[in-house]
């Protein structure tokens, strides 16, 4: 479901969609490794339309959210969110989130160890409140986009898949599941937009809720797909895996913010 946007926001969302283009997240989870889905060409296309500068002006939070939703829908690399807002990718043990390998110049990227303890840097939280605000809003938008993309796939599947002589979309159990998923999805989208308010507070509570909520949506989506969602082919699982990853990373930042 597309939420109606103001024309200029819709325009920006469309240009993000265009920049993402036919890009697809890798199908195969890299078992046993941090997944590397960075794509220089994609990053360059986004840079061309101004993605990355949006944090610098509070009035641009709207386009940032519109674009973040599109990135989530495409399950785009998370470092696109981090670099554009925090100014650097988040990294764990020197590995960029969802990026394989070490990044040169270790000072730049906030680094954590596996247990979430900071290493060699004072904080992963940016000192510039505008960056933090943008990160919060775009992260919410990304989660809303994940939920939206996943629900769209599940609805299409439920309408197309027939069992017991009719589309499974007609079954009360399937409808109830999709209704639950849709209401959380809408809550996520609305939360993302509410965080786009330049005068608003940092959406800490929304972020604390959103990761797990998005995960729940993707779980419903997996279930509606049945066996087909368990095959790597088709890629429904990307939403489900990504939602958890965003949740865990977000929790690290939030706990950092909460510590005295």
């Amino acid at each position: 479901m597309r939420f109606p946007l103001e024309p200029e926001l819709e325009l920006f969302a469309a240009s993000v969609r265009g920049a993402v283009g036919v890009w697809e997240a890798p199908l195969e989870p890299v078992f046993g490794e941090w997944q590397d889905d960075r794509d220089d060409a994609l990053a360059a296309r986004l840079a061309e339309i101004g993605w990355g500068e949006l944090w610098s002006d509070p009035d641009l939070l709207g386009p940032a959210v519109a674009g973040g939703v599109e990135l989530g829908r495409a399950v785009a690399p998370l470092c696109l969110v981090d670099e554009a807002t925090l100014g650097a990718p988040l990294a764990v043990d020197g590995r960029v989130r969802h990026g394989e390998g070490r990044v040169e110049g270790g000072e730049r990227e906030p680094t954590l160890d596996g247990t979430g303890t900071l290493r060699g840097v004072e904080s992963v939280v940016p000192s510039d409140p505008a960056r933090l605000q943008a990160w919060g809003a775009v992260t919410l938008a990304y989660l809303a986009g994940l939920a939206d993309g996943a629900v769209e796939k599940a609805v299409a599947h439920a309408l197309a898949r027939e069992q017991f002589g009719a589309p499974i979309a007609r079954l009360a159990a399937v409808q109830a599941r999709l209704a639950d998923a849709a209401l959380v999805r809408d809550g996520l989208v609305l939360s993302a937009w509410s965080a786009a308010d330049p005068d608003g507070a940092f959406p800490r509570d929304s972020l604390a809720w959103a990761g797990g909520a998005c995960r729940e949506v993707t779980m419903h989506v997996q279930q509606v797909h049945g066996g087909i969602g368990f095959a790597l082919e088709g890629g429904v699982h990307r939403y489900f895996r990504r939602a958890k990853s965003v949740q865990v990373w977000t929790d690290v930042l939030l706990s950092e913010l909460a510590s005295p």
Partner: protein
Amino acid sequence: MTSTQQRLREEAAVFCQSLRPVLEQDEEWRRQGMLSDGDSREVYRLLGEAGWIGMSWPVEFGGRGLTRLTATLVEEVFGYHWLPLSSYLLSYKTIGAAIERYAEPALVDLLLPPISRGELIFCQGFSEPGAGSDLGSLTTRAELRGDTYVVTGHKIWTSSAQLSDWIYLGVRTDADTKHRGISVLVCPVDTPGIEVRSFPTLGGGYLCETFLDGVEIPVANLVGEVNGGWDVLMYTLDFERVTAEKLGGFAWVLNAVEERLRETDRLDRVAAGRISRLRGELHASRLLSFRAADNLDRELPGSASSAMAKLSGARLAQAIGDAAVDLLGLEGLAEGAEAAIEGRAAALYRASVGSTIAGGTAEVQQLVIARRGLGLR
């Protein structure tokens, strides 16, 4: 638990520890997030050699004449040690049970002894692209020509078919009725006309598509009556749905997470409380599994109790996979031997998706509980 059961569990634990070097060499074992979907021909052979397959079968078939409940208690130990069990569960626990009950003696004599020796692996060809939850609508045709069935159709999600020696097939022998037109046939996987293709899954292993084109199967390979296959399939599922082995694996994950948090000084009250609640749920789920196994031993109607065992275990898989990643934090997202708790948190998180789908979806289990257990129609 009786002292014999306790002793067997201890023996099983020692045996499992002896398999550790074999397991560690197996790459799939590292990736596979659900031990019951994991597979290893070598582990199956070693289980058979050591007399662990077919525990509830009579001694003449290579069994130990124990109850299902006792076997279930031992399977939980296999799970705790994370043995890849797919072949075992298919060949002995589910398909083996149906063969023992429904097949003609000659077929029983032919099949059960090599299963219990760990030499013969079965896979289960029920589901089709058009027949998942609605299994009764399966269309794989079996036409009788003389004393041979000629079988043509397409099966999907066939676990372990890539390793299997024989396949257990739900086929349509009467096109005019639905459930009463189904029969069950078994045949070697290398019978001409069978083609198996495997594809990777989110669990870290493989599932298969099985294509059947003019496959000739003797009438003697029927399991149960012609057109009586629905009852055989349902009986098989009642056994499949007792999943104590999975619960053993979950208990290991909870212990490992607790240990890791203690080691890294993160086992606070909130974390300990969450682990404790999950252990409580796990305990209830174990009891549901043991009750279901006991019902099968007593030949009581088992569908509802098996569905409860299955559904509670499936939900727990997802709850524990999720909680393990939450509690470990970032390191919970990492996989592989070097990662925290051997990467099992992330692996269980992704693999647990299949638990509310395989063996009948969560919704199907609910229907069984509501209809068969509560009499709601």
